[in-house]
């Protein structure tokens, strides 16, 4: 197993070089003036901006391979460069924004997985009965809704009408405390930092801001988990050992709990990995709607402005994340399912 992990990690640099090369390749199609748009945001800023001078100042007229090598050199020195769109060094931007998204993803994963598995189980137990149809349609509708429409509806209900769950990550009073300098940000995840600082009120405030985006994400992802759970449960139901268990006269609940669910969860594990990855990179729209300042917003803004240092840095980061997540899923898979052996 250890050699397997080591072997997979060996491919990490190859994947990373590949991803960054691909980006540079794409960038090579762009003119220097297109890249300058990272520095000039709108026609209104063209007043006294000289595109050609900016091109020279930021070395955008250099050939692509030259830029790649100098970028690579800096990366090896541990410098990911400066992001114009984020107004921060890329490494700093990732370090500051990623914990927020991670916090959101972790909070969202709980209801997504629990709810999805529960619905999937209900659906499978009532295969082709009304309950199955209802829960599937419910989930498919979620899957079919564009996320910004659903997010805005949630925002309207829970903030606009009920005023329960405001957008952002913290309320103004909590922000004042956090930014006062007496509050130490250990992890960048507000809930954890609040507990570590012994500020239960801020913990609750952070939690309150997490609810609405979590609901949105959960509803959108339930269908995914439901579908996998349902079909793998049905698959297991038809297996001999389950028939045997039933034939033995075991109570249906015990059959499900003891024999079916555990085995049915195996394929779910793979899906959870890709889902977490999806949550970590694909929550741009939920972050936009709920003004949740995470890494998705950062990337969207950076990409929009052709901020290629940011694009490269975050791609590098996501490359690592992808390889690691896939690896963890594979290992987890082997741990859960004794039939799987890693070679």
């Amino acid at each position, binding site marked *: 197993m250890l050699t397997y992990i080591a072997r997979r990690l060996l491919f990490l640099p190859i994947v990373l070089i590949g991803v960054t090369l691909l980006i540079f390749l794409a960038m090579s199609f762009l003119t220097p003036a297109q890249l300058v748009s990272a520095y000039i945001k709108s026609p209104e800023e063209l*007043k006294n*901006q000289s595109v050609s001078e900016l091109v020279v100042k930021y070395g955008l007229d250099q050939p692509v391979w030259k830029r790649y090598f100098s970028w690579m050199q800096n990366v090896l020195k541990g410098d990911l460069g400066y992001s114009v769109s984020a107004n921060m060094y890329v490494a700093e931007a990732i370090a500051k924004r990623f914990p927020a998204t991670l916090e959101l993803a972790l909070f969202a994963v709980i209801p997504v997985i*629990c709810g999805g598995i529960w619905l999937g189980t209900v659906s499978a137990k009532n295969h082709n009965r009304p309950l199955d149809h209802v829960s599937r349609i419910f989930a498919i509708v979620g899957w079919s809704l564009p996320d910004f429409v659903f997010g805005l509806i949630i925002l309207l209900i829970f903030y606009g009408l009920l005023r329960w769950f405001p957008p952002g990550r913290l309320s*103004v009073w909590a922000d004042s405390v956090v*930014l006062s300098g007496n509050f130490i940000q250990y992890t960048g995840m507000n809930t954890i930092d609040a507990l570590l600082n012994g500020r239960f009120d801020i913990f*609750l405030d952070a939690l309150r801001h997490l609810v609405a985006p979590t609901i949105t994400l959960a509803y959108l992802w339930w269908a995914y988990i439901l579908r996998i759970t349902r079909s793998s449960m049905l698959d297991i139901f038809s297996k001999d050992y389950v028939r045997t268990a039933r034939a033995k006269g075991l109570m249906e609940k015990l059959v499900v709990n003891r024999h079916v669910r555990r085995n049915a969860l195996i394929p779910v594990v793979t899906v959870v990995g890709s889902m977490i990855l999806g949550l970590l990179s694909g929550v741009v729209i939920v972050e936009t709607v709920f003004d949740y300042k995470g890494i998705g917003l950062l990337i969207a803004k950076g990409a929009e402005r052709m901020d290629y240092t940011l694009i490269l840095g975050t791609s590098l980061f996501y490359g690592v994340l992808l390889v690691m997540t896939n690896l963890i899923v594979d290992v987890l898979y082997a741990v859960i399912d004794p039939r799987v052996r890693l070679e």
Partner: protein
Amino acid sequence: MNSKLKTLLVLALVVAVGAGVYAYLRSRDQGETPDEGQAPATDLKTFVYVSIGEPDTLDPAYAYDTASGEIIHQLYDTLFDYEGSSLEKLVPRLAAQVPSIENGLISEDGKTIKVPIRKGVKFHNGNELTPEDVEYTFERNMISDPVGGPIWMFFEPLLGVQTMEQLIAMVGGSSDYTDINDVDPAIRRQVFDMIDAAVEVEGDAVVFNLAAPYPPFLQILAKGGSWSSILDKEWMIANGDWDGNPDTWAKWHDPAKEEMTLYEKANGTGPFKLQAWDRSGGQIVLKRFDDYYRGPAELETVFVKYIEEYNTRLLMLQSGDADAIYADVQYLDQLRGVEGVKVVENLEQIANTTLLYNFTIPYEGNEDIVGSGQLDGNGIPSDFFSDINIRRAFNYAFDYERYLKEVANGAGQIAKGFIPAALPFSNKDGEWFTHDLEKAEQFFKQAFNGEVWDKGFKLTLLYNSGNNARKTAAEILEYNIESINPKFQIDVQGMQWATYLSKLDQGSLPVFFMGWLMDFPDAHNFVDAYLRSTGAFAGYCGEGLVELARAEFDDLIAQAMQAPTTEQREALYREINRKAFEYAVALPYIEPADHRVMRTWVQGFTHNPAYSAKYDFYSLSKKVADQS
């Protein structure tokens, strides 16, 4: 596994219920029901303004965008301020007196301006303001001169050039260098001496030595221009900025913005101190400066938050979490008449928006825009807009009234020339184009000796996508021109900003939109941008325009700046306006008005169109009328 699953479920449930109960309790705590929220969510000493687009930097030498200007405005003071909403009448701020020829502080030839400096003003760190600070501020900003920054406004009046590069070329160095350190040290020294001589301390005053008379110079120094914010020399040097050494200044020339001293730090004399620029949270927190020389502000804390999603901003305003928000003019319908919200409309703004013509459109590599490149009904020739009849026909075809009414929501006025009506020397009483399809048809028939009318043309009109107002302007033009002759085809297409910028830079857009928001309230700022051969947009308009500008406008614009009396200036600008009409140089169509959206409890809002800040937080306070 199963028990773990259950634990997780229970945990999730507890979290959800807990959050719900908490939310309920909190809303009870504040004694508010969800009905419209009559009280602010924050206390009366805290102000929350939700805007869009974070500042680029807090360094006055670099900042040239409105978002940066907004914050710098609160942190620093300038030598002068405008009185109320006037654009001409100045009052002293860090200066002790407003110089004029009458009080002798401006020399007869208008080239020497003496500004006495106020005493007893404190910086945020407690240092006292001195004339040396003022001198340092201007010299430091000039040696920095970041590419594309606002510092040309110092170079032009003080040294008669636009940039450091031009200055180096002027004293005999080559302007063809990539690194300032490659420039001969002797020349660098010479350059420094010129900058040094331009701003000098004289006792309690600072003297500006201008290269030539420059009527709007005091406006450049006034509040509203973030570039004129006065810095603390001692503190700057302590923080690693240039120490005044005449030989080492090159090190601080044209730095990357993130390496500049004031990028995220500030030590000004303004009414607010910078508490935090939380870039990961997209907000800036300002704290009241208690030793402010005009007395402390009413507000203690100001949050400026940057949220791009309009719906979120809207809901924050409705719930009272935000005291003021930024809203596009097209959504004001939704906001008018909402209880507890006030929309302050039709605020004067010194700006205009223009459709510019490219007199010499390149054909090579530009086929997707110019089509066949010939006058055969499937494209346009390179010199399409060199024909004055085409330009006039376009200018008559645009439906100005309709744009103002439907797109601009009635906010603003139709542009009549390049100088906004709010400024002196504008063309508001002169002749200008109106929506007149008959005239347009007549000019189209004359264009290219009637060939255009017979064969028609096909033109691709690009705008940077996302800008709805410009898209609609393009479609209004399309609708009107196509209705004149079915052979006239206009294809309106959105293009991503990066690509649009690139096309613009190559000069390959046949027509394009530009807006100009004033730097300082003077006619010169506008005619210089639109009509001069070296103007900001000339490069995008092709050789044809540059020639026209050189022949017809450059001399007039220069003369207008040198004119000794206001009457003479006015006559020259009248001539410029007339020629601009005669040649139909471009199609200015709107001078948009500005607006603010805030809660009714916000008091003390004042407006001056010269300010780069939408809100002067110093004058604001929050009062809840009905506190029963």
